[in-house]
């Protein structure tokens, strides 16, 4: 496969140096790292690399926490044990306790539930509505596309936080309401990704060939366009989930996320900032958790995207 694309590529800006005999045997850090990655590849049997599996493992862990939060052997996330107040990690509590003496680990695990639910729902809403609109716009073009793009541009031009605040004020502060609000906010981005991918697919001659066969529009959309657009959109969805987690925390910072006692990562960070001077772990632990999660989502999303990139030729 790589040759054709290789032929077509322009000279790389920084051409890659090639030395004699760049084989495994020769010493040097570069080739050691190379043979290590080859070994890992042999163990895992696929070309994803260690980073991918670490990230995917972390995401799996977060998902498991969210799913089994109530049955996991952790303390009650809402139970204030005043004596433990602001205790550091690895003392009374594994990951320390917060300003009210609640167990941080338990709050993280329960908070994962909120993060997962919000990001899954929001992304699904955005993907379904935005994705469909984008595909239709890219396929039919014309007036519909122009109108849709104009509306989307207006939405995108709005400061998103203001929009979100307005939506939350309007729909409410329950878990579902927040998910819905963030999901709606996400529609324009999805519509754009889906439209761009559709535009490039529609130019392909297999779409023309299907029309020459007498295929109906619906059939073309479902059989020829959708399968080629859905994977890039899904991969984008993973990256978007990471952003949703961040958006939730921003809302929490403003006190507008899910109502108070319910633990959320954003809420924990917001609360921790009060204790930054004396007990930085209260803000740090949820921050690191969130950081790792968002990083993993982006990494896995990117990797999957390059993996699913349509293979169109072999020679």
């Amino acid at each position, binding site marked *: 496969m790589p*040759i054709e694309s*290789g032929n*077509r590529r*322009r*000279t790389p800006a920084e*051409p890659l*140096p*090639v030395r004699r005999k760049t084989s495994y045997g020769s010493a040097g850090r570069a080739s050691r790292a190379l043979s290590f990655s080859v070994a890992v590849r042999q163990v895992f049997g696929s070309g994803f690399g260690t980073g991918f599996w670490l990230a995917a493992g972390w995401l799996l862990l977060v998902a498991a926490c969210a799913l089994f939060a109530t049955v996991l052997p952790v303390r009650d996330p809402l139970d204030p044990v005043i004596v433990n107040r602001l205790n550091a990690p690895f003392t009374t509590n594994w990951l320390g306790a917060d300003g009210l003496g609640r167990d941080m680990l338990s709050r993280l695990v329960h908070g994962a539930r909120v993060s997962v639910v919000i990001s899954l729902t929001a992304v699904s809403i955005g993907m379904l509505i935005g994705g469909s609109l984008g595909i239709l716009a890219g396929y039919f073009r014309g007036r519909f596309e122009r109108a849709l793009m104009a509306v989307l541009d207006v939405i995108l031009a709005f400061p998103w936080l203001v929009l979100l605040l307005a939506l939350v004020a309007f729909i409410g502060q329950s878990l579902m309401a927040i998910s819905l609000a963030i999901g709606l906010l996400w529609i324009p981005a999805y519509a754009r990704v889906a439209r761009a991918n559709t535009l490039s697919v529609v130019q392909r001659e297999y779409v023309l060939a299907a029309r020459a066969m007498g295929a109906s529009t619906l059939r073309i959309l479902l059989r020829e366009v959708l399968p080629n657009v859905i994977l890039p959109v899904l991969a984008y969805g993973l990256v978007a989930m990471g952003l949703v987690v961040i958006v939730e925390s921003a809302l929490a910072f403003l006190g507008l996320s899910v109502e108070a006692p319910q633990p959320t990562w954003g809420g924990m960070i917001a609360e921790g900032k009060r204790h930054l001077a004396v007990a930085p772990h209260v803000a740090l632990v949820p921050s690191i958790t969130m950081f790792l999660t968002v990083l993993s989502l982006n990494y896995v999303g990117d990797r999957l995207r390059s993996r699913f990139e349509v293979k169109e030729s072999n020679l």
Partner: protein
Amino acid sequence: MTDSQHQTQKLPLLRVEDLTVRLRGEAGIVHAVSDVSFQLQRGQTLGIVGESGSGKSVMARALMGLLPRRATQQLDGRVSLAVDGRVLELLKLSEREFRTLRGPRLAMVFQDPMTALNPVLTLGVQIAEPLQLHLGLNKAQAMARALELLAQVGIPDPEGRLRQYPHQLSGGMRQRVVIAIALACDPRVLLADEPTTALDVTVQRQVLDLLLALQRERQMGMVLITHDLGVVANRADHIAVMYAGRIVEYAPTSRLFSAMRHPYTEALFKSVPRLSDPSHTRLHAIPGRPPQLIDPAPGCAFAPRCPNVQQRCRRETPALTQAGDEHLHACFYPIGSREVGA
């Protein structure tokens, strides 16, 4: 090349010895180029002909030091370039040293003019850039030279074109611009990798004629890579036919056409449609397709498609052997040999 001092006169401009390239592909190690040797004199054109996947582009990239580093498993052999009375061993150079050669010494023209130019820069900037970089010209000088170059490659209204973007040009025009960029620093060796495959016949003819005229005028050495024997027929001094990563026949052009020995060369020759044939003449297609170069089996790579194949071809790999003055071929039962009973 320690004895080179006595024979500077005869010293080839570019000399390639036993070049071997192995790449890591998805399905395994690809033996893309195996034991390729040739030399190129000043002012000469070497045509390299072969089907797609025969290793032509990989070879050209190896000469330019542009192989994908992470995919290169092995790069062996010797490539010597004679410049300014010195002989440089290209494969031993560091990337930094190599970079100073690309442009003023070695240049390459790529297959697809549509993607070889940067869509967001004007043509003027793209031609002037290497001039500023390598020849140390200032901006105004570089632009003046760019103008000259555009005129040389036959672009009408060069002043206007300097400010245009690649998408405003047709395919043939773009390939001319790519050639102008390649020639900007007056290279000694020009590698043209299927420079006209993406163009249609009339433009192909113009671009080939242009390349040849510039090569003669500047006395460059040119390697002209193509899959179509017709393209090199009247243009190259020597032709090397490549199959499955190896040179299978090498000869001066006129000799190759008058006395080709390798069955693959003949098969390629016959598959070109000719104007002199009457309509609906059946073409001589080569059955099957070139081999995948992963774990090549022993024996002649052309055996599965060869009309002359015998038992021995499947056991042993034929080596390049002399078949006359400057004429080499790698075949046990070449055309015209007794065993074939032609």
